Protein backbone atom coordinates (compact mmCIF):
# COMPACT_ATOMS: atom_id res chain seq x y z
CA UNK A 1 0.00 0.00 0.00
CA UNK A 2 1.24 3.45 -0.87
CA UNK A 3 -0.41 6.34 0.89
CA UNK A 4 -1.01 9.45 -1.24
CA UNK A 5 -1.62 12.85 0.36
CA UNK A 6 -3.40 15.68 -1.41
CA UNK A 7 -3.47 19.35 -0.47
CA UNK A 8 -5.20 22.62 -1.28
CA UNK A 9 -6.89 22.62 -4.72
CA UNK A 10 -5.95 19.00 -5.40
CA UNK A 11 -7.65 17.93 -2.19
CA UNK A 12 -10.84 19.70 -3.26
CA UNK A 13 -10.71 18.24 -6.76
CA UNK A 14 -10.34 14.72 -5.42
CA UNK A 15 -12.81 15.29 -2.62
CA UNK A 16 -10.42 13.65 -0.16
CA UNK A 17 -7.08 14.27 1.51
CA UNK A 18 -5.71 10.72 1.41
CA UNK A 19 -5.82 7.93 -1.13
CA UNK A 20 -4.33 4.47 -0.73
CA UNK A 21 -3.06 2.58 -3.74
CA UNK A 22 -1.99 -1.06 -3.84
CA UNK A 23 1.47 -0.90 -5.34
CA UNK A 24 5.11 -1.57 -4.67
CA UNK A 25 8.35 -0.64 -6.43
CA UNK A 26 6.71 1.90 -8.69
CA UNK A 27 8.12 5.15 -10.08
CA UNK A 28 6.30 8.38 -9.29
CA UNK A 29 5.28 8.70 -12.93
CA UNK A 30 3.87 5.15 -12.80
CA UNK A 31 2.02 6.04 -9.61
CA UNK A 32 0.55 9.12 -11.26
CA UNK A 33 -0.75 7.05 -14.16
CA UNK A 34 -2.41 4.65 -11.79
CA UNK A 35 -3.92 7.49 -9.78
CA UNK A 36 -5.31 9.19 -12.88
CA UNK A 37 -7.13 6.02 -13.90
CA UNK A 38 -9.46 6.57 -10.96
CA UNK A 39 -9.21 10.36 -10.55
CA UNK A 40 -9.02 11.44 -14.16
CA UNK A 41 -9.77 15.10 -13.52
CA UNK A 42 -6.86 15.58 -11.09
CA UNK A 43 -4.28 17.97 -12.47
CA UNK A 44 -0.97 16.73 -11.11
CA UNK A 45 1.28 18.43 -13.64
CA UNK A 46 2.06 21.54 -11.64
CA UNK A 47 2.62 19.67 -8.39
CA UNK A 48 5.94 18.89 -6.74
CA UNK A 49 6.32 15.46 -5.18
CA UNK A 50 7.46 14.50 -1.71
CA UNK A 51 8.21 10.98 -0.61
CA UNK A 52 8.22 10.45 3.15
CA UNK A 53 8.41 14.22 3.67
CA UNK A 54 11.37 14.81 1.35
CA UNK A 55 11.15 16.33 -2.11
CA UNK A 56 11.52 13.71 -4.83
CA UNK A 57 11.44 13.46 -8.63
CA UNK A 58 9.33 11.69 -11.27
CA UNK A 59 11.71 8.75 -11.44
CA UNK A 60 11.95 8.18 -7.70
CA UNK A 61 10.80 4.63 -6.97
CA UNK A 62 8.37 4.16 -4.10
CA UNK A 63 7.70 1.04 -2.12
CA UNK A 64 4.78 -0.22 -0.15
CA UNK A 65 4.53 1.76 3.09
CA UNK A 66 5.83 4.99 1.56
CA UNK A 67 3.87 8.23 1.84
CA UNK A 68 3.70 10.27 -1.34
CA UNK A 69 2.51 13.86 -1.19
CA UNK A 70 1.45 15.90 -4.20
CA UNK A 71 2.38 19.47 -3.46
CA UNK A 72 0.74 22.15 -5.60
CA UNK A 73 2.70 25.39 -5.91
CA UNK A 74 2.96 26.68 -2.37
CA UNK A 75 1.64 30.00 -1.10
CA UNK A 76 2.67 30.31 2.53
CA UNK A 77 4.31 33.32 4.09
Amino acid sequence: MIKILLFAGLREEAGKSEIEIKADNLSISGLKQQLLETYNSLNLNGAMIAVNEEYATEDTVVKSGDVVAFIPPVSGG
Partner: protein
Amino acid sequence: MELFEVKSEPLSLEDITKKVERREAGAITTFIGTVREWTKEKRTLYLEYQAYEPMAAKMLAQIGKEAEEKWPGTKMAISHRIGRLEISDIAVLIAVSSPHRKAAYEANEYAIERIKDIVPIWKKEHWESGEEWIGNQKETVPYPSGRPHL
Protein backbone atom coordinates in the same frame (compact mmCIF):
# COMPACT_ATOMS: atom_id res chain seq x y z
CA MET B 1 10.63 25.75 22.67
CA GLU B 2 10.56 24.96 18.98
CA LEU B 3 12.57 27.26 16.75
CA PHE B 4 10.57 26.16 13.70
CA GLU B 5 6.87 25.48 14.02
CA VAL B 6 3.55 25.31 12.24
CA LYS B 7 0.56 25.82 14.50
CA SER B 8 -3.08 26.85 14.74
CA GLU B 9 -2.78 29.20 17.71
CA PRO B 10 -2.07 32.96 17.39
CA LEU B 11 1.60 33.85 16.98
CA SER B 12 3.46 36.12 19.38
CA LEU B 13 6.21 38.48 18.26
CA GLU B 14 7.52 38.73 21.81
CA ASP B 15 7.86 34.95 22.08
CA ILE B 16 9.71 34.42 18.83
CA THR B 17 12.10 37.28 19.57
CA LYS B 18 13.00 35.65 22.89
CA LYS B 19 13.85 32.43 21.08
CA VAL B 20 16.75 34.05 19.22
CA GLU B 21 18.03 36.52 21.84
CA ARG B 22 21.68 36.00 22.79
CA ARG B 23 24.07 38.21 24.73
CA GLU B 24 26.56 38.28 21.88
CA ALA B 25 23.95 39.22 19.26
CA GLY B 26 23.35 42.95 19.13
CA ALA B 27 21.00 42.89 16.16
CA ILE B 28 17.66 41.17 15.80
CA THR B 29 15.43 41.52 12.76
CA THR B 30 11.86 40.30 12.64
CA PHE B 31 9.43 39.89 9.80
CA ILE B 32 5.72 39.92 10.51
CA GLY B 33 3.47 38.76 7.71
CA THR B 34 -0.14 39.74 8.36
CA VAL B 35 -3.38 39.15 6.52
CA ARG B 36 -3.85 42.09 4.19
CA GLU B 37 -7.35 43.35 3.56
CA TRP B 38 -6.72 44.77 0.11
CA THR B 39 -4.72 43.26 -2.74
CA LYS B 40 -4.98 45.76 -5.54
CA GLU B 41 -8.74 46.30 -5.81
CA LYS B 42 -9.77 43.01 -4.28
CA ARG B 43 -10.99 42.90 -0.70
CA THR B 44 -10.12 39.85 1.37
CA LEU B 45 -12.67 38.76 3.97
CA TYR B 46 -10.48 36.13 5.60
CA LEU B 47 -7.84 33.54 4.74
CA GLU B 48 -7.42 29.87 5.31
CA TYR B 49 -3.97 28.30 5.52
CA GLN B 50 -3.39 24.61 5.07
CA ALA B 51 -0.08 22.83 5.56
CA TYR B 52 1.52 19.45 5.16
CA GLU B 53 2.46 19.97 8.77
CA PRO B 54 5.35 17.63 9.54
CA MET B 55 7.08 18.37 6.26
CA ALA B 56 6.45 22.12 6.55
CA ALA B 57 8.11 22.20 9.97
CA LYS B 58 11.06 20.23 8.55
CA MET B 59 11.40 22.63 5.63
CA LEU B 60 11.35 25.64 7.95
CA ALA B 61 14.16 24.05 9.94
CA GLN B 62 16.04 23.41 6.71
CA ILE B 63 15.75 27.10 5.80
CA GLY B 64 17.19 27.95 9.21
CA LYS B 65 20.10 25.60 8.59
CA GLU B 66 20.74 27.07 5.17
CA ALA B 67 20.75 30.57 6.62
CA GLU B 68 23.11 29.66 9.44
CA GLU B 69 25.51 28.27 6.86
CA LYS B 70 25.26 31.30 4.60
CA TRP B 71 25.48 33.81 7.47
CA PRO B 72 27.58 32.22 10.22
CA GLY B 73 26.74 33.48 13.67
CA THR B 74 23.05 34.06 12.93
CA LYS B 75 20.27 32.27 14.78
CA MET B 76 16.79 31.96 13.26
CA ALA B 77 13.28 31.06 14.35
CA ILE B 78 10.18 30.79 12.16
CA SER B 79 6.54 30.27 13.11
CA HIS B 80 3.76 29.82 10.59
CA ARG B 81 0.12 29.80 11.51
CA ILE B 82 -2.51 27.63 9.82
CA GLY B 83 -6.30 27.48 9.87
CA ARG B 84 -8.65 30.43 9.51
CA LEU B 85 -7.06 33.88 9.82
CA GLU B 86 -8.82 37.23 9.95
CA ILE B 87 -7.58 40.56 8.58
CA SER B 88 -4.46 41.76 10.44
CA ASP B 89 -3.83 38.37 12.04
CA ILE B 90 -0.21 37.28 11.91
CA ALA B 91 0.37 34.46 9.40
CA VAL B 92 4.14 34.19 9.67
CA LEU B 93 6.91 35.39 11.97
CA ILE B 94 10.62 35.24 11.25
CA ALA B 95 13.24 36.34 13.78
CA VAL B 96 16.99 36.41 13.21
CA SER B 97 19.65 37.44 15.69
CA SER B 98 23.21 38.20 14.71
CA PRO B 99 26.26 39.99 16.07
CA HIS B 100 26.05 42.17 12.95
CA ARG B 101 22.99 43.83 11.50
CA LYS B 102 23.67 43.24 7.81
CA ALA B 103 23.48 39.48 8.23
CA ALA B 104 20.31 39.80 10.31
CA TYR B 105 18.54 41.61 7.48
CA GLU B 106 19.83 39.38 4.72
CA ALA B 107 19.10 36.09 6.47
CA ASN B 108 15.60 37.27 7.35
CA GLU B 109 14.74 38.23 3.79
CA TYR B 110 16.27 34.99 2.52
CA ALA B 111 13.92 33.06 4.82
CA ILE B 112 10.69 34.64 3.59
CA GLU B 113 11.70 34.08 -0.03
CA ARG B 114 12.54 30.43 0.67
CA ILE B 115 9.26 29.92 2.52
CA LYS B 116 7.41 31.03 -0.58
CA ASP B 117 9.42 28.56 -2.66
CA ILE B 118 9.70 25.31 -0.75
CA VAL B 119 7.50 25.12 2.34
CA PRO B 120 4.32 23.08 1.78
CA ILE B 121 1.78 25.63 3.02
CA TRP B 122 -1.11 26.98 0.98
CA LYS B 123 -3.48 29.83 1.44
CA LYS B 124 -7.05 30.13 0.29
CA GLU B 125 -8.35 33.63 -0.21
CA HIS B 126 -11.97 34.29 0.67
CA TRP B 127 -13.38 37.35 -1.09
CA GLU B 128 -16.91 38.70 -1.30
CA SER B 129 -17.02 37.35 -4.84
CA GLY B 130 -15.73 33.85 -4.10
CA GLU B 131 -12.76 31.86 -2.94
CA GLU B 132 -9.56 30.52 -4.42
CA TRP B 133 -6.49 28.53 -3.46
CA ILE B 134 -3.52 30.73 -4.23
CA GLY B 135 -1.07 28.63 -6.12
CA ASN B 136 1.91 30.59 -7.24
CA GLN B 137 4.64 30.66 -4.64
CA LYS B 138 5.53 34.28 -5.33
CA GLU B 139 1.88 35.40 -5.16
CA THR B 140 1.99 36.94 -8.59
CA VAL B 141 -0.28 34.59 -10.52
CA PRO B 142 -3.16 33.17 -8.53
CA TYR B 143 -5.07 30.43 -10.30
CA PRO B 144 -8.35 28.74 -9.45
CA SER B 145 -8.60 25.31 -7.87
CA GLY B 146 -4.92 24.76 -7.30
CA ARG B 147 -4.37 24.37 -11.02
CA PRO B 148 -1.36 26.17 -12.45
CA HIS B 149 -1.30 27.68 -15.93
CA LEU B 150 0.55 25.14 -18.04
